[in-house]
Structure formats: structure tokens, C-alpha cells
């Protein structure tokens, strides 16, 4: 079964560096998501692994063997591009059966596998239809089924759920993970949707401007992001620029506005250092009355909006700016927060929830890709 190794891989198109010194090791049977914004090089990275384009420098190994310049068809990998091309003159069932047929399975075996895969992507009832009779989301699921049906041990998926309606996408992503695990295949799945990556991957490689920003388990990327960009892109957070004004054994005090400081545990940053204090929205709680706890600030509740599990609350903290708190819905309703818009409330984030980053070279707004 295949493991994947990229060693110092770079790819340039003319003057554009699409991929820049990427090294990556993916274990056999692992489900890895490559996550990044549009233009970060995700698709190029996938095409390099598939052999559809060759690196400018560096090497690629599959299953311990060098394959850097090996033809795609000799890599034993199924690549499902974002621009899937279904055969217009074939039925859905025939399209899916083409995957295994092309890999040398008998027609009976191929059709049987096709039926299984169609069930999986919930399209059994459309087996006899032609692609043009189906919606874009359905067509994408057929392309996915065709990729899966070939039983390749390595699946390379480029935004496999991108064209599918949000609700169905959530259902399918859990099924896709379950299927990959049941089949024991290795998967590299490219997406720009961090929720999708978090809910499906064993490990996530976050790509930014052609380079890997962080590669790790979802829990590590979420719990210990290495830059404000990562904290923002994966999960979102509140960010306050400030200066370290006091340091003790295990506490750092950061002044984020005149006369107001945030306490963080840890002491990795020097006194006087320009930093960014960051805390997750769901680790930011709302209190309806004052208390003497640290990191507690009064503010005006600007708006509430329903996300589902959480109620999203925007709070205006005056000089500090606006921050967002995600409060578990039932708790928020007990506090009657939707009725308190305009009222003064208090927000709080525990010191252990406050991460501190060195101030990025670029302006924070650019780093966070606010636009």
C-alpha cells in the first residue's frame, strides 16, 4: 500500500512559483487534506503527486520508490479532478463502471462495483440517467464514484465535494472518510473549506503561497496554530494587536489598548515585544453581570446570529474594537442574548485560551486576508 514522500519539491510556471520547497510525508492508509485559499498551489501539488505535471526541482516517492518523472498511469493512483469529464453518451452506471473496466476488471465485476459506489454517493436511483440530465453536484458525485470504483490504493481528490449543496456535502464528507477507512486507501484531498478538512482528515497540510504553513493533526493545527494566518484560516479567532508590558514566571501581560491589558499564560515573548493576542470565538464567553475575573471587559452587544450549535455574538469593546463570541445556543438562550442586543454585557476569555504570536511582518489585516 502506498505512502507518499515529497522531498524539497518546487514547481515554477514561468516567473510564478506555484510550489516552493515542499517536503511532505504521508503514511500508508492516511487521509490527508491539503487546505488553502484560492491560488495557494493546492491543485498543482495534487497534480505533481498524480504525475500530471513534473516538478522543477525536488523528488517524489510513492511506496518508497522514486516516481518523480513516472507517467500518471504507472502510479497506481486515481486522480479525480475538479473539472471532471463524464462521458456524455454513457449512462451514469456505465460512467462509473468505466473506472474498474479500465483497470482490467470484468464487465460483471465492474458493474457490480459501480452499483455499490452509486449507492454510496446516493445516486442509485439515477443509474440509468445520462450526465446532462443531472445537476452539477450529482455529476461531481458520479466522478467521485468513478474514481473510487477503480479500487486504486491511492486517491487524489481535487475539491471532490465542491459543487455539492452544503447540506449534502456535510453528509457526504463523513461517508467519504468512513469509506476511505473501510477500504484502507491513502487519500490526498484538496479543499478550501476548513470545516471539511477538520471533519475528514487524519492530518491537514495548510498551504499558503505555495509553501506549507503547518502540517499536523487537526487538533494540533486548531489548538496550537503557528501563525495568526493559521488561527484565522482554520477556525477563526479574535485578534488584538498589543505590546508585552509585563512578564512573570508563567504569565504575560499584553497591553492591547491604552489602559487595558490581556493576560495570557506562558512567557515566550520578550518584554516590549510587538505581539498579537488571539483567542478562539468559542472560548470567549459572555456574562450578563460583572465579576472580578481577569480578562473580563464590558462591551455592547451589537448583534447575534444563529450558526446552529452556537449563537454568534458581536460585541463592541470600544477602544479595543469589535470581537466575536460563539456561545453554545442553549446557554445563549438561557441568558436571553438575542433579546439583549444593544445592552451592556461582559466578555471574558480565560488566560489559557489566549495565544500570543509575534506581530507579523505584513500588516495584520493582510496576514488575516481581510479585504
Amino acid at each position, binding site marked *: 500500500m502506498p505512502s507518499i514522500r515529497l522531498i524539497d519539491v518546487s514547481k515554477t510556471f514561468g516567473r510564478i512559483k506555484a510550489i516552493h520547497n515542499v517536503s511532505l510525508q504521508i503514511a500508508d492508509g492516511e487521509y490527508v487534506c491539503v487546505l488553502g485559499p484560492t491560488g495557494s498551489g493546492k491543485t498543482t501539488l495534487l497534480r505533481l503527486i498524480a504525475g500530471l505535471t513534473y516538478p522543477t526541482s525536488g523528488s517524489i516517492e510513492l511506496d518508497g520508490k522514486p516516481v518523480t518523472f513516472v507517467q500518471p498511469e504507472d502510479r497506481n493512483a486515481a486522480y479525480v479532478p475538479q473539472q471532471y469529464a463524464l462521458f456524455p453518451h454513457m449512462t451514469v452506471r456505465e460512467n462509473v463502471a468505466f473506472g474498474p473496466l479500465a483497470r482490467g476488471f470484468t464487465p460483471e465485476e465492474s458493474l457490480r462495483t459501480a452499483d455499490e459506489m452509486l449507492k454510496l454517493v446516493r445516486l442509485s436511483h439515477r443509474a440509468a440517467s445520462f450526465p446532462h440530465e443531472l445537476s*452539477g453536484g450529482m455529476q461531481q458525485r458520479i466522478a467521485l464514484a468513478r474514481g473510487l470504483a477503480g479500487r486504486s490504493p491511492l486517491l487524489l481528490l481535487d475539491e471532490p465535494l465542491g459543487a455539492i*449543496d452544503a447540506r*449534502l456535502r456535510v453528509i457526504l464528507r463523513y461517508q467519504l472518510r468512513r469509506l476511505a477507512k473501510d477500504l484502507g486507501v491513502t487519500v490526498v484531498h484538496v479543499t478550501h473549506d476548513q*470545516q471539511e478538512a477538520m471533519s475528514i482528515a487524519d492530518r491537514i497540510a495548510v498551504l499558503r503561497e505555495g509553501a506549507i504553513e503547518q502540517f499536523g493533526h487537526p487538533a494540533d493545527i486548531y489548538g496550537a496554530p503557528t501563525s495568526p494566518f493559521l488561527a484565522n484560516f482554520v477556525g477563526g479567532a479574535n485578534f488584538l494587536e498589543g505590546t508585552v508590558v509585563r512578564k512573570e514566571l508563567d504569565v504575560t501581560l499584553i497591553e492591547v489598548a491604552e489602559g487595558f491589558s490581556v493576560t495570557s499564560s506562558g512567557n515566550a515573548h520578550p518584554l516590549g515585544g510587538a505581539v498579537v493576542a488571539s483567542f478562539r470565538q468559542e472560548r470567549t464567553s459572555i456574562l450578563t453581570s460583572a465579576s472580578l475575573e481577569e480578562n473580563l471587559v464590558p462591551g455592547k452587544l451589537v448583534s447575534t446570529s444563529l450558526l*446552529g450549535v452556537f449563537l454568534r455574538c458581536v460585541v463592541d469593546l470600544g477602544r479595543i474594537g469589535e470581537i466575536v463570541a460563539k456561545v453554545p445556543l*442553549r446557554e445563549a438562550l438561557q441568558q436571553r442574548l438575542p433579546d439583549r442586543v444593544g445592552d451592556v454585557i461582559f466578555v471574558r476569555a480565560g488566560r489559557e485560551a489566549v495565544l500570543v504570536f509575534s506581530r507579523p511582518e505584513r500588516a495584520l489585516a493582510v496576514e488575516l486576508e481581510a479585504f
Partner: protein
Amino acid sequence: MPDIRIVNVRKEFRDVLALNDVSLEIRDREYVSIIGPSGCGKSTLLKCLAGIIKQDSGQIYVGDREVTALPPEERHLGYMFQEIALFPHMSAWDNVGYGPRVRGEAGELARQFVGQIMEMTRLNIASDTYPDELSGGAKQKTALARAIAAEPQLMLLDEPLGALDAHVRGVLRYELRRLVKELGLTAIHVTHDQEEAMSISDRLVIMKAGQVVEVGTPLQLYLSPKRLFTANFLGEANFIEGTVEESNQGQITVSVKGWKLNFAGSGFVKGERIVLAVRPESVIPAPDDQQSDREWTGSVRDHLLLGDCMRIEIELENGTEIVSQIPNSGLQPIKVGERARIDFAKDGIIPYQFPAQGLDLELALE
């Protein structure tokens, strides 16, 4: 903007009934989202409102004025789609100023007006930039600013964020609502993304197969949907089938594969087939260290950290699979393979009569 009334609007495309006598009222300055799976008729309805598609029958009123037969340009509305069509040879500023220029406005006043819109949409820094140098999000904002500059009273938004990265979508949707509210516009927003719709709308219209299934505020429809389809479409839910064993004095006892479940409710009779919708956040798991023989225990099948939430799939001993999704407290989760018991949050169980057409068809997303 006066209220909008859609009365019995019907539209057939060859053999497909896209709108099956749809009636709907939208109030002045309301932000309403129409959501449903692809093919449910939501975009067709919006196009009928815009006057781009002519319905077969039915009427559309703006206040007392019937606009059914009016061409799009006489309906005073802004329309924004997923596919952005900015003028490539004009800067962002000139794109936004296009409407006022066509209306013959010029000089300092017109310049101020465009400047105001650029500021509101936070596009000032991109004023001199041409469309192909703008990010996807900035392009979509420019398109929105251009629509606003035409001073419509009603904004029709057809998947306005559909072409953008998930992260950008999640940020821009709040700006969209803010702008509509600041300008005092009425907005009708069509989307397939239920989280987007819930988070920014005053009311939601749920559609399925050319019909309106349910209308209500996001909280109403999320917490107590009248229809099973709504419960499924508006966020995840576990659907548990059972039989009513007892129903009196506001308490219902349901038997589920031999196990019992009690909850507050009424309107069901003994022996009736029932479906219980339970949102994943209403399923509260705990380690079952005592290896108790109580009901509603099982083993953890998979465990995922979704960031703000933890998701746990549990296979119960009676064969039911159940999903729990609770806020990520930072505590150690129950591990895969370990035993867990589950409790249901108070008011977390929403009971429904078993649908006549079967559960799968009722929940079908296409």
C-alpha cells in the same frame, strides 16, 4: 419599500413544475433567505420576482401596485448573481459609479455618492484597481457596491457568495447583512447553504420541489421545525424511529428497538409510529465506566475534533447509530472503542408522526 406579496405563482419548464402555486409575503426592510436543495425552485422564484422569467400564472405585488407584467427595469430592484459581471476595462470606482453615470449624474455630488458607497463596502483601498487584479471577495463586493449604487429598494441576491472560498464566504455574509440593514433595504437572498441563511436572515423560507415547506425565523425553524424536512435541512439531526408506548399529561414514552425514551410532548396516541429528531448537540455523551446495564449505552465508533466542536459517533447496543456534536471544552474526549452512555438535552427531542411517504422520501435532499 412597501411589502411584497407573491400570490399563487406557478411556473412550468417543459415537463418540470418549478413553482407549484407559491405564495409568500415579505415585509419592508426584511432580510429573507430562500433556501432548499438544488432544483427546489428557489432561483426560479427570484427570477420571477425580478421579471427575468415570466410565470405561467399568479401575481406579484409591491404594496398595492401589481408588477406582474412589468419589465425588470421598471421594478426598481438590484440583482446580484453568483457569476460576477464587472466591466473589465473599468476600475472598481468606475464600475460602482456606472449606474449614477448612466442616470446622468455628474460632478461633486455624484462623486461623493460613489465615495460613500465605496466606504460602506470597505472598498476604498481598491478604488483604482481593475477587476482582474481584485481577489474573489473584493470582486463580489464591487458587484454588490455597483448594485447598491443604482439605488434599488429591493435587493435580489442569487447565491451572491457562491463562487467564493469557504473562509471568505463566512466573512462576507455578515458584511452583506450589515450593508442591507444600514441602507434600509429589503433583501431576498437565495442560497443552498443553510448556515449562511440562518446566520444573516430575519426570516427563512424553506423550499422543496417547487413548494414552500415552512417559513419562520432562524431560531423557530432550527429549534422547533414543524416539518421533518426542515429539521434535516437546517442543520444535522439524528432521526430515531419508534413506537409510542404511552402519552399522557404532557409526557410521551417511546419504545426504540426495545429501549425506552421519555420526553415532554403531546398530540400522539399509544401505538402510533413516531420519528424523533434530535440535533447532535442535544446528544450528551459521558464515559460509561461503570459498565452499567442501563439503556442508551454503546461504544464510540469515531471521534473527530471539528475545531469549535467535538463530534462523536456512537453505536448503541440496540443497533442505533447516533451522532453527538458538543462544544469543544478542551477536555479529553471518550476514545474510539470505549463505552459511552448518552443523555438527551431537555427540549432536545422533537417528535413527528411517521411520514406517510416514508422517512427517506420525506428527508430527501434532491
